[in-house]
C-alpha cells in the first residue's frame, strides 16, 4: 500500500497539494474500494471495477466536505474521476 502520511495540510490549491491526493487515496482505499486493492495516483478507478456508482457519490461527498466546496453535478463526469490524478487536475482547474 502506498498511502502517503495523512496530514492536516494548509493547502490553497488541490493541484499542488500532495496531502490532498494522499488523503483521497487513503479514503478510497479504506472506504470505497474492496479490501486489499492497491491504489496509487494514476490507478484507473473505473476500468478495474474499484469504484462503483455509489463509490463515485462517496468520493464526491468526501471531496466536498474536505475542501468545503460544492461540485456541480455537470462536473461529475468520467473524465474527471478516472484516477486520483484526474481528480486533482480537475480540481486544479476550479
Amino acid at each position: 500500500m502506498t498511502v502517503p502520511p495523512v496530514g492536516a495540510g494548509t493547502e490553497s490549491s488541490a493541484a499542488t497539494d500532495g496531502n490532498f491526493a494522499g488523503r483521497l487515496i487513503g479514503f478510497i482505499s479504506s472506504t470505497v474500494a474492496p479490501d486489499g486493492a492497491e491504489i496509487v495516483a494514476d490507478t484507473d478507478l473505473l476500468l478495474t471495477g474499484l469504484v462503483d456508482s455509489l463509490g463515485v457519490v462517496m468520493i464526491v461527498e468526501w471531496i466536498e466536505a474536505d475542501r468545503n466546496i460544492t461540485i456541480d453535478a455537470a462536473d461529475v463526469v468520467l473524465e474527471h474521476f478516472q484516477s486520483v490524478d484526474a481528480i486533482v487536475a480537475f480540481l486544479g482547474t476550479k
Partner: protein
Amino acid sequence: MDSARRRSGLLSHLLDDERIRNRVLDAAAPAIMDGVRSLTWSQYVEQVAKAAGALVAAGVRPGDRVAIRLAKSIESFVMTHAVLRAGAVMVPVDPSAPDQLAAGVLADSAAAAFVTDASDATIADITDGLALRCIAVVGRDDVAPLNPSTNLLTRRDLSAAQPGELVEVDVSAPAYIIYTSGSTGRPKGIVHSHQSALSYATTAAGLYELTPRDRLANIAALHFDQSTFELYSAPLAGSSVVVVPDPILRFPASLTALLASQQVTVVYSVPSLFRQIADRGALDDRDLTRLRWVLFGGESYPPRQLATLMNLLPETRFSNVYGPAEVNQCMVHHVASAPIGDEAVPIGTAWPAATVTVVDPDDVTTPAEPGTAGVLIVRTPTMMTGYWNRPDLTAASVLERPDGQGGSQRWYVTGDLVVEREDGELEFLGRLDNQVKVRGHRIELEAVDDALGDVDGVRSGVAVVRRVASGDDTVVALVVPTRPEVETGGESHGFANGVIAELRRRLPHAAVPAEVVLVDDLPRTGTGKIDRRAAQRLLDSPRDAVRDRMGNP
C-alpha cells in the same frame, strides 16, 4: 420472393445482408456506436458474418450452446448475432458475476463454446474441467495456450475469417437461454426460441413505433433481457443502437451527455438508473429534445421519483414495462402525466401480443374475485419454451386451461400478485413468495420497499422479515441513508425513528417496519436490482452488510 418468405422466422435473418439493406435508410450510416467507435450497417453485417464463419470453422454446430461473457460493447452485439447466424444458441453470462457462477452456467447449459473478453486467468478459472470445442477471445490476440482439443479464436481469427453462410434452423429451436438465480440458489435457464424472441421483437418495435430514424440506448448487459429490445427490435426496425459502456453508467452526467451527443431517441432501463439521471444527470445542461420515449421496468418506480424525472423531461413519453423473463414483456402502462401523490404506477394492461388474467392465489383454476389480489397468468407467443433441462420446473410454471373448443391453452403462471383497479389497469402488489403475514395481516414486502423509496433522506431501502419462533413475524427495513455520516454519527437513532414515522403515514399499520437498520449499501443482483434474499441473509449481521459490497454496478 419464395426464398425471402422462407427466410423470415429466425433472429439471424435480422442482420442478413439483403434484408437489412431494404430496411435501413443508408447502409453506410452508423448501425451501432458507443460514443467513441461505430460500425455502419454494412460493417456490422460483415463483422457478424465473419465471426459466424470463424465459429463454424472452429466446430460450432447448429443447436450448440455458446456462452458469451463480454462487457457491454459493440462486440457483445456482433458476437451475439454471429452465434445466431451459426445456428447456435446464445447463452449470456453476467460479466460481473463471480467465476464460479459463470462456470455453473457453462456446465448447466453444456456449452460447446465460450466467447469472452476475460483475462487468461479468468478463462482458465471458468473453463476448468469443461470439454469445450472452441474458445473465442474477443479484442486481443495474445492468449495463453489452451488444451489442444479446444480450438482457439482470437481477434485476428474473428475478423479475418471467411464470412459464414446463414445456418437455417427450425423457428421453434432455441435461440437464447437466460439464466436466473433460482430460489434454491441453483441457476435455472429460461429458453426462448427464435419464434418467441421474434414475436417479442416485432411487438415491441411496433408498440414503441421504432423507425430507421431511431437510436436506442443499450444499457442492459446481454444477460438482462431488457437488452433483447436493442439486440433484436432495433435491427428489425432498422433503428441504430448506442451501446453505453459500463463505466459511463457510474456517472449520470456522463450518461446524459452521451444520450445528448448521440441523439438517442429511446431509452429502456430500470427505475434506479432513471432516478440517478434525475438526481445527478445535470439535465439543465443537456439537450435531450430528441429523447422521445423512456421505458422503465424490472422493478417499480416510486411515483414521486417518476414525477421528478417526468417534470425534468416534459416532452418525453414514459411507459412502465412489465414482464417476467419467461415471457419477456406482457403488459404496458403509458404514463399520461407526472404522478401526483403516492398512488402506485400501475403495470397497465396486456400489450398487443399477450392475453392476461388474474386467478385465485389458492386455486389457480379459479378467477380471482374482481378487486381482490390474485396471481397474474399470461398467454403469449413470447413465452419461453421452458426451463433448460428442468421439465419439473417448466411443468410447475405452466397452467393448461381449456380453450373453449375442446382443446387447451398454455398459460404462464407468473407468481406475481396483482389487483385490478377500477379503470381496468392492473397494479403490481408483489411476489407471491414475498407475501408475509404479520399479526394475521398479509403484507407485500414490495409495498414497503416502494414507500421507503419515497422517504426523504433514504437513498435506497428494502424490506425483509424478522421471523421469530412464536410465529409473530415483523417487518424490518434495511436502509441506506442519503448522507453516509448519518449511519456512523450520533443521529442514527433519530433518523431511523423519522423513517418509521414517515412510513406510518404511508402504509397500513401492520406493514410499518418495527425496526430500521442502517447500512451503507444493499446487495444487488447482476441486473442491478436490490437482492432481497441476500439482504434477508444479512439481517442478522448488519456489520457484514457494511463490508460486503456486492455487485453494485
